[in-house]
């Protein structure tokens, strides 16, 4: 049932049955590393190119998610996923190996939530039984495409962020007992506040996150309070700006116990990571790893995931374009 | 007539940035004190040089000059100025003034080795070629 507001509400309680998280060697330094199912020793998983390693990464995580759900690959109706590489080739090649019906999705680092929203719509429409959703990113492959070759000695500014090598996938099915389910969602609009520095993603994505959070919380302001609202990969800089925006507009007066950001916390306070983590893998691994675990154990009952993504390309930056961003929100409950 | 070797080794003041009386040394293969004075007079007047070494050999004269570090901006100017002055004083000599450190080292080797005339002529020829080399 979709009312005239922007928020989508799901009445059949599509449940996240299982999730699987994989991470690269560097992510051992993450504060969440104990929640990751697989931690690889080599960024390329002994493949000969970064992109092949990235594809292998996705394939392994998907297989694990399906197995943890107690299903077979043949039971999955569709794989909804995407990554940051040109034309999402790593996800495409992983889908080739998985031989699951596949629909590629691109919202940059917000794919982790946009794939969950689409999956929920599909389950709600009762046309599908099990949907595999999620997203991933690989540091080397993303850095060399968007910024500089890996070994190039460029200096990261203090607001720079470190792309995470991680993948987070989950299986969505019909309502199930004591399983977190998707209550509602808000699809983000593309917001462009004319930020131009590709090294400063945080401040480019903050307004998009703010717009989606404001819209979603406004429509739920007289509901029960949220245990947690967590944004994807704004990083320390973006998160500080988001809190400032919320203070200015009074959004922080809405009933929310705690605001957090996956990118800001991912690497803790190690200075060499500057403003923290970014990348589709960051939001996916933190949302569907530790936070999903807390919801499952009922420590958190009502959580809002807000994944943020910057919709630029190496070309658009060189052509002098500004950086448009988007943020999708999905509300997860557990009874 | 055989040229008797006569070597005058002055004290080379290495870090003589402040003192302005440059030390001059001569490796003189001819017994002609007058030529040494005129040359010494020219070199003494040039106060921004810290060290110089000159080699005479039948109508060939190679002067290696070391400019003080702080006035190295004018190094090429000093070199050209000295070249003109020395050529004016010794019209019948084939003169080369160079402020290059390598030339100074080569001449110092030459003085140490103290070769016979034929080898001396060849090394002087090599040094002059080296000084003109561009790349």
């Amino acid at each position, binding site marked *: 049932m979709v009312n005239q507001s922007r928020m989508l509400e799901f009445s059949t309680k599509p449940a996240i049955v299982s999730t699987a998280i994989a991470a690269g060697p560097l992510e051992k330094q993450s504060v969440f590393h104990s929640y990751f199912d697989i931690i690889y020793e080599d960024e390329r998983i002994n493949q000969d190119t970064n992109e092949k390693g990235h594809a292998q990464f996705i394939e392994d995580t998907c297989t694990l998610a399906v197995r943890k759900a107690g299903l077979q690959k043949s039971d999955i109706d569709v794989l909804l996923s995407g990554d940051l590489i040109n034309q999402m080739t790593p996800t495409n090649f992983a889908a080739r190996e998985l031989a699951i019906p596949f629909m590629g999705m691109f919202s940059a680092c917000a794919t982790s939530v946009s794939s969950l929203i689409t999956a929920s719509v599909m389950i709600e429409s009762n046309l599908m039984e099990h949907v595999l959703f999620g997203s991933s990113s690989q540091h080397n492959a993303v850095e060399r495409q968007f910024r500089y070759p890996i070994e190039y000695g460029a200096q990261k500014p203090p607001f720079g962020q470190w792309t995470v090598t991680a993948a987070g996938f989950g299986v969505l099915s019909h309502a199930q007992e004591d399983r977190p389910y998707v209550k509602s969602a808000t699809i983000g609009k593309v917001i462009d*506040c004319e930020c131009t520095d590709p090294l400063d993603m945080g401040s480019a994505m903050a307004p998009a996150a703010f717009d989606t959070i404001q819209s979603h919380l406004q429509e739920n302001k007289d509901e029960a309070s949220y245990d947690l609202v967590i944004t994807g990969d704004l990083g320390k800089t973006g998160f500080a700006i988001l809190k400032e925006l919320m203070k200015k507009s009074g959004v922080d007066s809405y009933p929310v116990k705690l605001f957090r950001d996956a990118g800001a916390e991912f690497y803790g306070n190690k200075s060499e990571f500057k403003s923290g983590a970014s990348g589709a893998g960051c939001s996916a691994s933190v949302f569907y790893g530790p936070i999903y675990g807390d919801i499952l154990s009922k420590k958190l009952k009502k959580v809002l995931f807000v994944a943020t993504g910057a919709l630029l390309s190496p070309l658009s930056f060189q052509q002098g374009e500004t950086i448009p961003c988007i943020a999708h929100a999905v509300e997860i409950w557990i009874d | 007539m055989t040229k008797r070797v006569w070597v005058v080794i002055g004290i080379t003041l290495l870090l003589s940035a402040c003192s302005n009386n440059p030390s001059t040394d001569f490796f003189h293969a001819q017994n002609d004190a007058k030529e040494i004075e005129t040359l010494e007079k020219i070199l003494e007047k040039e106060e921004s040089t810290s060290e110089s070494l000159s080699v005479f050999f039948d109508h060939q004269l190679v002067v290696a000059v070391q400019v003080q570090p702080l006035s190295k901006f004018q190094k090429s100017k000093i070199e050209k100025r000295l070249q003109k002055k020395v050529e004016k004083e010794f019209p019948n000599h084939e003169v080369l003034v160079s402020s290059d450190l390598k030339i100074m080292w080569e001449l110092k080797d030459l003085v140490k080795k103290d070769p016979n005339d034929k080898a001396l002529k060849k090394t002087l020829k090599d040094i002059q070629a080296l000084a003109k080399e*561009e790349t």
Partner: protein
Amino acid sequence: MDAKSYQPIVDQIAPKRPVLRNCFAAFFVGGIFCAIGQIFSYLYMYFFNFTERTASNPTVATMVFIAMLLTGFGLYKKIGQFAGAGSAVPVTGFGNAVISAAIEHKSEGWVLGVGSNMFKLAGSVIVYGVFSAFVVALIKTILVKMGVIAW
């Protein structure tokens, strides 16, 4: 949320680049690279037949060789992160730009990858070096031919 009201918030909150600290780091590391270069030119002068003027060519080649070793062993990006321009401005920075692009694009094959991507970062330095040299030399030659200035 429009850009004009948003940009001041960013300027206020986003952490500023530590300019002073970066300048000291750049000065220190850049100085070390040049001092190493000076030592190499002395070595070339002492052991080989180079004068002070011609010693710069082999020195530059040696510095690029050092850049290759540092880049290959993954040290250059650490130096670059610490020093910034101190590691980019010396010729080792130019070497690092070329060599890191070459190493990076080996996965796309030797001709299409290494061959066509090698000068992805450093190409602009050569292009605008040659172009500016051409313009400057042309102007100076014209002026000299008109007798305005001497060589």
